[in-house]
Structures are given as structure tokens and as C-alpha cells.
């Protein structure tokens, strides 16, 4: 019997305190097409990064065609015959298809023509990639990997921007590869595609492999169970149809709407979002990666992809999204995703960071100068309320703080700003459990002050615990709303698909 093309044995990987993979084992045969499915954070990306040399596992072994390998880098993995086509488009738009294909290769290989023919790009070799659609750009990325003659090809969400005929074309290509004994690992959220293309499905949840079965013996419903049930194995009583929307429980929520978004469509996603947030409630917003949550929140705040259609009302006032300053003036604040990129100013202290947007309000009257005593008092008080340790954090450079404390500085920044609506994008990203609980407490307190709180998170469990109501997003659209007893992790997960 021949050895499998790829065997991953009992691989564990942790980032900081979070375990991304726990004793995961998978096998891929020669010429086999294996689909990897699971919810956000299930470990699909981590396993593909390990197999393609982007990260190294903490423990466990990797075997390629019966030989144990230790992959040091993506280049090394390519040399061993493993190629990853990542989810993000990475092409040089100003170069032609041919130039993109051979990019990084020392000499132009003779089979550029063959690869281009296989991908249906043979007549467009001298077209600039910028002039191609996203599907053709994806094919260019696949072609670039194929030129390295991989034995194992990993496709991460390859069809994200594909139409039905384009998907069918990709499937033909993938099947052709499989016939030549090139193995394919196919990562996708689109379950109908998984059933069509894969020979076998591996289901993952919270870093573990929870299912491994042939596609022929798997139905759509079973696939959904693997994904939803895996994340919520502890609540088997949660059964039923997510389409039965239940009215929100009356939990101290007034009927006064503080935010109403109608038909808001951005250039980033095809769908339009309609929803509202009432005074005194914490509303959760979730969806799979790429569902358009960040685009939506950023659009309201006036950054990111331009708004194409729709209206935003804050209380009685119309907000035409344009700049963060305008949103602030209307009483909307956003705690954005990715605090190192979008919030923290390195080299400044916590105090200076937290006071940045409100510094003009804290000027000594009649002068351009900041009342620093007042500033220190305000920030210190707020950081103490948020239980930030150590106590002298207020005068520490923000770069020296841990993730949880840094996030509290960002939180403090926007709590200092008077507001009616607080939007939060992944506020608990990369913070420890304690800080997470404190952040949830703060959200509740803000709602109790009569503000409307909208918190976006890919961690469904977190939202079910902390929100009054959960909105589910898909392709820029709010596709489901769950509240009360219907708001279980499983139902929310199902609604995401």
C-alpha cells in the first residue's frame, strides 16, 4: 500500500494562550480532493498554514508521501511540493498575466503555456491583471502555484468572488489536477460546493477534527450539523428552524431607536443592510469571515469602502457617512477592529492615546493648550474603572501594555467621548478572558446608560452570552435576527451559513 500524500499527526498549535489546533490529525490520499469545513476559528486556516510552511506546529508530525518533513518556510514547502493559494488576492495588478505567473521564478518555465491553457488563460497571457475580473485573478494565483509543480494544492476559499459558471470551470480544473494525482485540500464555507467537488470532508471545530467522512455518504443537513453542532456540542436541546424569528425579549429595552440603518450598501459587498439598534440594548452582529461586518461598521463611521446606497439615522438626525468626525458629531463612536493598526499610536502614553479624539474638548479655555491635569484625572479614573492594571498604566507607553490593557485604553478613548451609539468591531480580539469579561460588563453598562450598543464578533458564544439580540450577516446583508430563547449558538451558527 502506498503512503498517503499528506499525513498530519496529532498537531497542536497555540498562539499566546489560545489553542488554535489540538491534536489534530488528517490524511489526504494521492489525487484525492479533501474539503476542510468548520466555523470561524475552527482551525482550518491554522492547519493549512502549517502544511504550507507559514507557521510551525508546537508538536506533532507532518508526513509527505511517507517522509517526515519539517517545513521551515513557504518556499521550503513549495520545494517539497505543497502550494497554498491564500484567501486574499495577491497579484501585481500592473503586470501582465504572464509576468504574474512567472513572478519569483528564476527562469521562465516552459510550461507557462500549458498551465495557462489548463486555466483557460492562454489568450490573456499579455493582458494586464488589473483588467481581469476577480475570478480570473484567482486563476492567475492558482497558476502561479501550479508552475511550481505541487503534489498537494491547498485552496483557501477560492470561489469567494466567483459566479456559477466560473465555479464550474474551477471544478473542472481541480478534477483535472486530481486525475494527475495532484491532491487538493479545498477550504470553503459554501457547503453545496463542498458536496460537489470533494471526495471526502473533514469537519473541524475549536481546533479539533470532529468529523471525517466520504462526501458520498454525507448530506447537506449532516454537513450543517458538523459545522453548527461542533461549535455548540454542549447544548443539544437547541433544535429548530432559524427562520422562525422571535421578537426580542423585553429586557429593559426602550422602544426608542438610536440607530436605524436602511438599505446600506457599500462598494465592498453586494448586499444591503437594514437594521436598527434601540436605546439600552446590546445588539450582536456576526457572520462568517468576509460577510461584511467590518465594511458595514466602517461605512457608518465614514472610512473604508464608499457607501453606494442607503440611509443612516441617529435618533432623529440623518447621518450621511463621510468622515469619523461627522459620525462623532452625531454621537456615533466606533471601536475598530485591529487596534494596532487602527487605534493605538505608538510612542504615546496611554493617557495621550486615550485622550486623542477628545483633546480639543479638554483645552484650557482661550488657549490651544491641553489641560493636562484634567486629562490625567479623566483617563486615570476611567482606566481604574475598567480595572486596568498596573495603576501607573496611565503614564506608560502604550506599546508596553498587554493586549487586554491596550484594548481598555482604546475603550477608554471612546468612553470619554459623549455618544448615543457605540459600535464595536471585534473588541475582544487577542485579549485574555478576564479583560473579555470586563469588556462585556462595560458594554452592558453603556446600554444601561441609554446608549445603543452594536458589537460585532465572529465568536458566536461570546455574543450569545452578552447580547440581547443577534443580527447575522452574509454578503453585506442582514439575513437573520435572533433573540430570546431562539438565540442559541447552534442556531446562530446555522444562520451564518
Amino acid at each position, binding site marked *: 500500500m502506498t503512503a498517503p500524500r499528506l499525513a498530519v499527526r496529532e498537531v497542536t498549535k497555540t*498562539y*499566546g494562550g*489560545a489553542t*488554535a489546533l489540538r491534536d489534530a490529525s488528517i490524511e489526504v490520499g494521492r489525487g484525492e480532493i479533501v474539503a476542510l469545513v468548520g466555523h470561524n476559528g475552527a482551525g482550518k*486556516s*491554522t492547519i493549512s498554514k502549517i502544511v504550507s510552511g507559514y507557521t510551525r506546529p508546537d508538536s506533532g508530525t507532518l508526513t509527505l508521501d511517507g517522509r517526515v518533513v519539517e517545513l521551515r518556510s513557504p518556499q521550503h514547502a513549495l520545494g517539497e511540493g505543497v502550494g497554498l493559494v491564500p484567501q*486574499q488576492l495577491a497579484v501585481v495588478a500592473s503586470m501582465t498575466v504572464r509576468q504574474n505567473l512567472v513572478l519569483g521564478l528564476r527562469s521562465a518555465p516552459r510550461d507557462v503555456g500549458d498551465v495557462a491553457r489548463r486555466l483557460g488563460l492562454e489568450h490573456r497571457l499579455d493582458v494586464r491583471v488589473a483588467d481581469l475580473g476577480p475570478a480570473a485573478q484567482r486563476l492567475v494565483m492558482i497558476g502561479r502555484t501550479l508552475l511550481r509543480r505541487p503534489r498537494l494544492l491547498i485552496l483557501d476559499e477560492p470561489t469567494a468572488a466567483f459566479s456559477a459558471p466560473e465555479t464550474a470551470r474551477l471544478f473542472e480544473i481541480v478534477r483535472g489536477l486530481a486525475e494527475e494525482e495532484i491532491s487538493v485540500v479545498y477550504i470553503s464555507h459554501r457547503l453545496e460546493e463542498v458536496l460537489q467537488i470533494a471526495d471526502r470532508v473533514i469537519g473541524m471545530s475549536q481546533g479539533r477534527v470532529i468529523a471525517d467522512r466520504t462526501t458520498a455518504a454525507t448530506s447537506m443537513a449532516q454537513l450543517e450539523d458538523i459545522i453548527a453542532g461542533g461549535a455548540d456540542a454542549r447544548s443539544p436541546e437547541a433544535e429548530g428552524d432559524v427562520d422562525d424569528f422571535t421578537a426580542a425579549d423585553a429586557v429593559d429595552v426602550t422602544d426608542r431607536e438610536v440607530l436605524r440603518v436602511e438599505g446600506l450598501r457599500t462598494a465592498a459587498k453586494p448586499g444591503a443592510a437594514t437594521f436598527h439598534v434601540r436605546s439600552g440594548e446590546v445588539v450582536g452582529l456576526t457572520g462568517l*469571515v468576509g460577510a461584511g461586518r467590518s465594511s458595514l461598521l466602517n461605512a457608518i*463611521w465614514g*472610512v473604508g469602502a464608499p457607501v453606494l446606497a442607503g440611509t443612516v439615522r441617529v435618533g432623529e438626525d440623518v447621518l450621511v457617512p463621510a*468622515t*469619523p*468626525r461627522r*459620525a*462623532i458629531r452625531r454621537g456615533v463612536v*466606533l471601536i*475598530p*477592529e*485591529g487596534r*494596532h*493598526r*487602527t*487605534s*493605538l*499610536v*505608538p*510612542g*504615546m502614553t496611554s493617557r*495621550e492615546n486615550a*485622550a*486623542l*479624539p477628545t*483633546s*480639543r474638548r*479638554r*483645552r484650557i479655555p482661550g488657549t*490651544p*493648550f*491641553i489641560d*493636562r491635569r484634567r486629562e490625567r484625572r479623566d483617563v486615570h479614573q476611567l482606566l481604574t474603572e475598567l480595572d486596568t492594571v498596573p495603576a501607573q498604566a496611565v503614564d506608560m507607553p502604550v*506599546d*508596553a*501594555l*498587554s*493586549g*487586554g490593557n*491596550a484594548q481598555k485604553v482604546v475603550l477608554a*478613548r471612546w468612553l470619554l467621548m459623549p455618544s448615543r451609539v457605540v459600535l464595536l468591531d471585534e473588541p475582544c*480580539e*487577542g485579549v*485574555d478572558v478576564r479583560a473579555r469579561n470586563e469588556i462585556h460588563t462595560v458594554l452592558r453598562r453603556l446600554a444601561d446608560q441609554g446608549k445603543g450598543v452594536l458589537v460585532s464578533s465572529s465568536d458566536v458564544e461570546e455574543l450569545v452570552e452578552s447580547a440581547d439580540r443577534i443580527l447575522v450577516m452574509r454578503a453585506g446583508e442582514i439575513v437573520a435576527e435572533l433573540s430570546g430563547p431562539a438565540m442559541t449558538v447552534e442556531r446562530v451558527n446555522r444562520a451564518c451559513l
Partner: protein
Amino acid sequence: MLSAASPSAEATTSAEPLPDAGTTTSRGTVLRRRFGPWGVPLIMLVMVAVFQSQNSAFLTVANIWTILEGAALPAMVACALTVILVMGEFDLSVQAVAGFSTTTFAALMASWNLTTVSAIAIMLGLGLLIGALTGWLVAYQGLNALVVTIGAASLLNGGEFWVSDSRSISVGIDPAFVSFVRSDVAGVPVLVLLAPVVALVLWALLDRSSLGRELRAIGANREAARFAGVNVRRTILIGFVITALVCTVAGMLYTGRAGQAYPLTGLQVLLPSFAACFIGAAMFRVGEFNIPGTMVGAVLASIVPNGLLLADVSGYSTYFFQGGILILAVGFARLVAGRDTSHA
């Protein structure tokens, strides 16, 4: 502007939990933090000792005043440049703005027969206009600051010939203004008093005002400044205006100091002012451009030509020293900061 690579690289990996930037500091970092800020004073001390050993006239009261007076106007320009560097932009037109101001100010008094006060007012207006124009091109049109300011510098150089009709202006400059600039107050040259005043104003602006806070935020993380509601474009424009105004003032004072004006013979400060800023970034607020550091850097940058002159080293060696010091300063600032915060 030039350090934009690192945050975006971080953003692409945001799918997985970022390892917390905990409070762990390596021994190297501790050493750098503790001893790094003493590097520049130490170098200064060594230089003074060397120059003194070459010529005992170096450390005399008269020569110290000479050094400080020579440092005053370059220090003003360097402080102005600091404002631009703090917000992560570049300005290669500082010398040209000062030079244009020197010649035009002289021409306004000599050829147009304007009173000193109205000439000053017109110059301030012109400085504002120059700063607003470059600032607008950089901030609102998104043009590269390096290219815009090189272009502006060339235009201003040409402007000097145009306003002076390519002639040397020595008659018609208000003698009262000249003697004011050259005068002493209690034995201290007026320029040596004025430079710290300008520095103090700019320090207060950068370190104590909300505008300065915003300027610094733009320089350190422009994306975060935008998300924090800072009007990034307007603030950058204001930064360029402030810099151009200060350079204009320095240029006018140079008219008084020299008592004459000829195109392209004004303050020679482009290289020394950059050197001063980068030397300054290795002091006080280490790793960041700051006004007190720039002031020390400006003094250091003018000790060198003076000391070399007294040591009877041939004239062209100044070029080697100035260029060498600039590169050393950049390298040292980076070493002390331990990261690429020196924008180099």
C-alpha cells in the same frame, strides 16, 4: 511615510490572535533605554575636548557666543523641520523658503521702497501662502512630499533671482533692522535670545497643544489618527504652514544678520537642519523627533564647522563631517530607539 510597511504587514496576519505585546523587555532594550540618551552628550563632550586640544581658543566666551549665534538661525529652521518630521512628512524646501525670504525681504525694502513693517507683513503673508500651497498639494492632492518640496525649492530659488533682478542687494536694507538683529542684550546676542523663544513656542505647540497631539498621532500612525476623528489633511496643511512661516522669519533675520542679500547665498541649512533633527531624535524623547533634541542637535551641528575652522583643517572637510554626522545621527537614532521609529 517611509515606515508604513510594518503596520500593514501586521494587518494581513490579523486572522489569528496577535501575540500580546506584553511588558517583556529584553536586556538589550533596558541598556538602550538607560544609556542611549547619553550617547549624544557624550559625543558632544568628546568633540569639544578634541577641538579644544587643537586650538585653545575654542572654549573661550567669545567663541561660544560665536557658535551660539551661528547656531541660532539654523536652529529655528531645524525646529520648523521638526514639525514636518513629527507628522511623518518630509520638507526639502526649508532652506529655499528661508533663502527666498532673505532675498525678497531685502528686495521689498530696497527696490520697492516699502517700510520695514509692511515688508515683514508681506513676507509673513508669502510664507503662509508657500506653506499652504505645498501643504495643500501634499495633504489634499496626495502628492509625494519629497517631490513637491524639491519642486517648490527650485521654484523659490528661481524666485530669488527674479525678485532681486539677479543683483546683490546691499543698499536700502533698513539699518535699524540690521542693527537690531546684530545687537546684544546684556552681552547676549539677540539671535541667541530669539531662537529659544521660537523653539519654546514650537515645543509648546507640539507637546502641550491638541494640534501637536494630532500632529504626532498622524506621524506615528496615520490610520489610527483618521479613526480617532483627526482631520488628517487639514492638520498636515497646518503643519506645512507653520514650518514655512518659521523658515520665513529665519530668512528675514538672516537679511539683517548679513546686511545684504544675493540669490542662493542665504542660510545654508538643509543638511545641518536634518542632522539636527535626527541627532535630536536620539535624545530626550528617544526615537521621536522633539524640539529640545533638535536644539541640541543644531548646536552640535554648528560646533563642527567652527571647531574645524579653528583646528585649521582645510575648508572642504566640512562636507565630509556634515554628511558623516547626518548619517551617523540617523544610525544612532535608530540604534537608540531599537526600532524603525526614526522614520529612516
